[in-house]
């Protein structure tokens, strides 16, 4: 294929619609008409519109199509909506494998849902592939349009062909006024005052401003691509962490998937009190209105991290009072206040009593998280703990068991050894009650005192190294949007051809503003002009 030569002598690459230098239409069928020219991408040669022979061309053309990009975006949006209809796999409420859960709970639709991968949509291969294809499309669409546009704008000459000037959407033809040379200088001055960059060639001029706004969409795309790269970085091991840890008051716990340990030095809930609010709020009863959740947290690093399971050697690295929105931060790690189990029972305070005599033999404390196997009451009496079910229930065959490892409904089997009961005396102990072994009459009973309470704080563990990249992408994207939205690329051509002065204007948006500027500079130079404006469709606008 050959490059195309225009009447003006400029050689444009094959596929060019309007000559890069003078704007003259290069295709015969466009040249013959007199409707307004299609000024998209300055009539530059776009690869996708020019070549479609090889496979590479076809792949390129596929991705450079905005139409296909829109379809892909719509598919992703619809899929994202469908993905919220049933819970995602990680939020399945019962401990069942996904392959069974969806069909069992939602029937046939659930099975389809599972088979199509909607249960794990946001990391399913086709969803990610679509996102990536949208990413490619962004790059290719941008390159396919931006490079030719850039070249065309760079190569444009001051003098344009009449066929170009008379076929702009905004135009005028006036006969050369008296003292045209002086007037043109004046026009040039007024245009400069309006921040136009004016190029002059004899008695022709091209005034241009805001060309950078044409790059807005492409800068916006670069921002989106940076954003996408940031999102993909989360897949790289070590870049992203989303975990949770429950810590009792005073307890030190390992922060999952990190070499750190966190200790809670106390979790507190503050409530609003009368004095905290202005009196006329109308809330008399502030009871139970929470003001703040706070965890006094200490972060340790395990400096002895070697073999998992071996005794850690902890070194304090950070200390912070975590409240909502004010996490503990250390390097990339963040611990957020996120959950609470206040006033949880931590230990039972018991007294062993002789039911016959009413004598109190002694007190003992059962730690629900780590009960002892033996409690010494006095020199002659000990209690052995035989069984402990933190969350007591019966199995189907009526055997005692625990529903969970959390002490929500603790039950024990205790055995008292004393001079009166050398063989031991067994009893079940529940929260607030006890039960002798069936058919026996026990000597010993138990008295419950106020149990020890503890607060358990829930901390969300987050690490996200991709965040700066994502924010940067958002910023660039915003920059592009602002460039594209708040500025326009305006051009005004004034060209003298024999007895006629051709005036033409072009902008990528806000035609009203451009029209006003053209009229204004001509008025200031006292040259009467009547502008003709065509709509996009070529029809005259009044």
């Amino acid at each position: 294929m050959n490059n195309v030569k225009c009447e003006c002598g400029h050689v444009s690459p094959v596929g060019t619609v309007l000559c890069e230098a003078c704007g003259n239409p290069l295709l015969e069928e466009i040249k013959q008409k007199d409707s307004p020219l299609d000024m998209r991408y300055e009539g530059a040669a776009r690869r996708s519109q020019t070549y479609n022979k090889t496979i590479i061309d076809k792949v390129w053309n596929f991705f450079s199509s905005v139409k296909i990009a829109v379809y892909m975006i719509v598919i992703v949006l619809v899929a994202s909506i469908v993905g919220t209809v049933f819970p995602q796999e990680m939020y399945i409420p019962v401990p069942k494998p996904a392959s069974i859960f969806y069909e069992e709970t939602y029937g046939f639709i659930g099975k389809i849902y599972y088979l199509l991968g909607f249960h794990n949509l946001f990391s399913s291969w086709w969803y990610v592939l679509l996102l990536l294809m949208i990413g490619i499309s962004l790059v290719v669409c941008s390159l396919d349009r931006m490079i030719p546009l850039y070249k065309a704008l760079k190569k444009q000459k001051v003098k344009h062909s009449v066929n170009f000037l008379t076929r702009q959407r905004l135009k005028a033809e006036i006969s050369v006024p008296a003292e045209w040379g002086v007037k043109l200088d004046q026009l040039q001055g007024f245009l400069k005052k309006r921040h136009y960059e004016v190029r002059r060639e004899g008695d022709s001029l091209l005034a241009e401003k805001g060309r950078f706004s044409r790059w807005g969409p492409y800068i916006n795309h670069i921002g989106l691509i940076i954003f996408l790269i940031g999102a993909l970085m989360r897949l790289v091991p070590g870049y992203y962490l989303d975990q949770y840890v429950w810590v009792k008051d005073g307890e030190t716990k390992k922060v999952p998937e990190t070499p750190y340990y966190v200790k809670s030095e106390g979790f507190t809930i503050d409530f609003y009190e009368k004095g905290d609010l202005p009196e006329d709020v109308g809330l008399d009863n502030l009871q139970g209105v929470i003001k703040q959740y706070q965890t006094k947290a200490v972060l340790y690093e395990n400096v002895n991290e070697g073999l998992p399971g071996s005794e850690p050697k902890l070194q304090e690295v950070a200390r912070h009072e975590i409240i909502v929105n004010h996490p503990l931060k250390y390097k990339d790690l963040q611990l957020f206040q996120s959950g609470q189990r206040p006033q949880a029972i931590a230990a039972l305070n018991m007294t062993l009593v002789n039911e016959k005599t009413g004598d109190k033999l002694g007190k003992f404390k059962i730690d629900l998280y780590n009960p002892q196997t033996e409690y010494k009451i006095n020199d002659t009496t000990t209690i052995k703990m035989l069984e402990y079910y933190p969350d007591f229930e019966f199995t189907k065959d009526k055997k005692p068991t625990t529903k969970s490892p959390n002490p929500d409904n603790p039950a024990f089997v205790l055995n008292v050894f004393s001079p009166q009961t050398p063989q031991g005396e067994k009893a079940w102990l529940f929260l607030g009650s006890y039960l002798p072994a069936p058919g026996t009459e026990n000597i010993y009973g138990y008295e419950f005192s106020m149990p020890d309470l503890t607060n358990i704080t829930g901390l969300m563990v987050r690490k996200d190294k991709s965040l700066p990249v994502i924010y940067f992408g958002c910023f660039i994207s915003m920059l592009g949007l602002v460039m594209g939205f708040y500025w326009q690329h305006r051009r005004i051509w004034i060209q003298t051809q024999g007895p006629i002065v051709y005036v033409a204007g072009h902008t990528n948006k806000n035609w009203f503003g451009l029209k006003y500027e053209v009229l204004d500079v001509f008025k200031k130079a006292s040259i009467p002009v009547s502008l003709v404006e065509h709509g996009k469709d070529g029809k005259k606008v009044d």
Partner: protein
Amino acid sequence: MNRSRTWMRLIILGVIFVGISVALYNAFIKDTAAVQANELAPDFILKTLEDNQEFQLSKQQGKGIVLNFWGTWCAPCREEMPALEKMSQEFKDKGVEVIGVNIGESDVTVESFRDTYHITFPILMDRKREITQLYEIGPIPTTYFIDPDGVVKKIVIGGPMAEKTIKENIAQILPQQ
């Protein structure tokens, strides 16, 4: 001119496709699970319930190990205990040992459970759930069949396992006589 354009486009598309392939590979094909079949089981050290002795996985080489993560609150774990106990008896002298890892429960709870179910194989107490996290245990029971070289041969997630399943998997980790 034309040729250089084709090359340019080929290079751009090529770079994009390589990037995509890497991203997809990382996300889907490369298994990021902590423990995988045919790879070494991560080493750890834990104390046993019986005598508070330290048990280190890497020191068990030469023996096949059936590593069973369980908790007393988990019904399928309870149901597969008799089968595990039976297999532990059967293969004890053939160089395969069953090891239970209890997830974060108290001694009293586990001791009474052991006595109820007549368990004789060693039980390791993962009090801080560190090893449970290390192995990224999801649903329990989860059982690892580890060969005499310390390589995981089979991972069974969920249960209860039938005696037959246990036996078949033990066959893969029997030491050569």
